[in-house]
């Protein structure tokens, strides 16, 4: 992966939200989450793989994620994460508040553009 690509850093705290969202689509292992993050964000967002696992463990620790060891399609054992009920509730509130935040930010940005005209 060339490092020179201009990519934005993830805003603080959004990694958790993204992980919860990805896991909510179905049980998935850590590598799968990393892949999905990359694909979905189309290489726009720098996903620091180093901070993925601590985040997973933290979420598991808080009871938002649960994990089981299962066989993958290649026959190897991997740790699959899934969303707990608590995690789903959290995802909904976080997603809603993210929605509100981005709408508000977008609104402000539009206003300033109109003001500049």
């Amino acid at each position, binding site marked *: 992966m060339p490092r020179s690509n201009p990519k934005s850093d993830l805003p603080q705290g959004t990694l958790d939200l993204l992980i919860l969202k990805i896991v909510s689509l179905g049980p998935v292992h850590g590598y799968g989450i990393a892949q999905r993050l990359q694909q979905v964000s189309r290489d726009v967002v720098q996903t620091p*793989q180093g901070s993925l696992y601590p985040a997973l463990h933290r979420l598991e620790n808080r009871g938002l994620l649960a994990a089981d060891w299962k066989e993958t399609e290649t026959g190897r054992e*991997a740790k699959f994460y899934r969303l707990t009920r608590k995690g789903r509730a959290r995802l909904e509130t976080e997603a809603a508040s993210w929605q509100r935040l981005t709408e508000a930010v977008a609104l402000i940005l539009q206003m300033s553009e109109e003001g500049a005209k």
Partner: protein
Amino acid sequence: MNWWRRLLRRKQIEEQLDKELRFHLERQVADLIAGGHDPEQARRLARLAFGGPEQIKEECRDARGTRWVEDFGSDVRHALRGLRHNRGFAAIALLTLALGTGATTVMFSVVDGVLLKPLPYREAERLVAINGSTEKYGENWGFSYLDFLDVQRQSQSLDAAAWNYGGGTVSGHGEAEYIDGSAVSSGLFPALGIRLVRGRAFRPEEDRHEGSPVMIISSRLWQRRFGGAPEAIGSSLTLEGKSYTVVGIAPTVALFGDSDVFTPLGQSWADPRMQNRGSRFIRVIARIRSGASLASAQTELNLIGRRLAEQYPRFDAGHALIARPLGRELAGDVRPTLWLLLGAVGLVLLIACANIASLILARAVSREREIAMRAALGAGRGRLVRQSLTESLVLAFAGGGLGVLVAAVGIRPFVALWPGSLPRAEEIGFDWRVLLFALAASILSGAIFGLAPALRAPARELERALRAGARNVAASSRGVHGGFVVGQLALAVVLLVSAGVLGRTLLHLASLDPGVDLRNVVTARVAPAAATLTDAAAMRASWKEFLDQTRRVPGVERATLTDIVPMRAGQNFLPFSSTPEMPPPDRAPVALASCVTPDYLEVMGLRLKGGRFFTEQDRLDGVPVVVIDEVMAQHAFGRREAVGRQLWMPALSRAPVQVIGVVGHVRHWGLAGDDHSSVRDQVYYPLAQVPDRLMRLFSSLMSAAVRTKIEPSAVIDPWRRATLGSTGDRVLYEVRTLDELAGASLARQRFLLLLFGIFAGLALLLACIGLYGVLAYLTSRRVPEIGVRMALGANSHQVMWMVLRQSLWMICAGAGLGLLGAIAAARLLQRFVEGVGPAEPSTFGATMAALGVAALVAGFLPARRASRVDPIAALRQD
């Protein structure tokens, strides 16, 4: 998963973490190879994208939330490793702590058992003791049996019960032996809420003089004499010649620790005191009934007291009844002594803590570079403080654990060493309260000696610390070190002065003349035979017979009767006047009056200061005569000659009494207590001149005393046998030698001195070790500086003085601070220990001298070592 389960399955979790991360990497490598990279390059790229696996693992561990416990574990291991490497330090610190916490724990378990624990009875907080009280003499009165019966009958809010010390020779089922016992009212066991081990309590109808003779025995006696067999109930035991049927087995009762037999109090009718309202010889306790309170019970007792005073003004006028919580009453005057000792031992522990703190500090300073290195590598301040505190706590717990062992071994010998009887001694022991205390003491001492080094631990000015060599004198730590030494010395001064004050007191008291010849005198109370109590003539004849029988006992030189025995509890105060007009009763001077027989002078070894003592010729038909002591002679007649003068003593006779002799003062209220007694005048009058109508009362009060030619204990048994009388029921009890009575009056001072002496010695030793350690450490840090000074021409005297000067300010500051504390401590002792006078300047002087010498020696050794520093070697160092 709970955090503790995560902690327990730590290894499995670690493996899974590793497996998870490896899976990620391998999958990525596989994907990259599939994407056309060659394996070598694929692995490199995957690694680059992934980052350092160890850092990721570390962050995952942090995310787990069990980090602090794991850190704690590694800190503990680190601390243990440190202690193992530094054996000398570990040994000294552990020993100091073990002794400190051990001694404190022993003292606490005594305080806990005697003062703090609730009494082992059901709803013990509802139990009270009731005492008689008069305005003049306070709450020092027991109950008369008749008053007790009235209170029991009239009270609506109290279930009152009474007991009296008793006991005697028990026979049947084994050898005859003397056994302590108590005569108790039928309500006593129910009032205390004691469930008998077997059998039943006394019934009210058995608590009368015509009741059937029944007895309750302690489970201790039951085991000893019956081997715990159930047939003991219903069998008979003989007590003082009277046969009793055993109806119950009682558990050990705190109130009657030594009692093994219990008889119904109401059956002691043979004891003439039972029918005398003025004879306040029994103890009363009561349980407050539900619905009543201590206050309402007291109000009721006031009412009953007033009613009794109106009904029987001759006995009960001005006599109030006071209820007090039983626990407080039982602990009695041991209370201040115990708190004093706990305080003293706490000071020793504090000194020990200061000592260890300065040791740790010295280590911390020499580890400054190591700590600076850790900080440079990213250890946070909090983390370093935590590590340092953990080290101290490990030390504290190890020391505390050893201390608990010391206490467990030491507690029984300590209780056995206690002079006289320690109330509730059987309740002292190791339980969770004591362990909790030891734990708290360990944590607290760990915090005390760990905090200062811990807060110091994070190196300030990191870079300087790393760059500097050992040459960097830890100037900043000098102040802290000095502070510890000053504190230690000050505490040691407090203990030293306290010990000095007690020592002087004891020396002073022991040198006092008791006024009687203590050697070879045996005293005993006498219960006269019931058959002789018919008329005055019979009683006089019986007493004469008793004295004759006593004199014939081999080894007995002389024998006398008296109602008051020197230094034994018991008093009879009579008003007197040197003029015919008596002052009003509440203002008349009173004297301790003893009713004696002619041999009293020789038996007690009183010194005759003038005139003569009584003879057989001083009889009822002659002039009433008295002998007074020099204190009373001074009060009544001043400097004028007392012999041959008249005194008016209405309690003895309507006519004036003739003073026929003056004797030396007897320290009746104990060697220590006599000076503080409100009444010190003493008067003696002959039993032969006691009017017939009072003979019965006096017969019930008499004690006997004999002077022996041989070892006094050898005459006790023959004397007992020889005087049983024709009916075999004249009984000697409370047999004591005068030596025992006098010794008991000083025992508390002696015991306190012993302990304070030990504590003070220990404190001084610890403080000196502390001073030595700090100076030696500071000096060793200054060796390069000293080397420079000497190279520049300083001679060894100047160097020595430089080091000594350092110790001098610590000693002076410690002594000064300690002096203030010592003045306060001396006040406390004066207030709580009988016979202690205000601390004299010479006590302080001697203490300071001892401290100064010891401290200077401790300071001199490092100073001398400094003066012998070889400048070349010193400059090459580091």
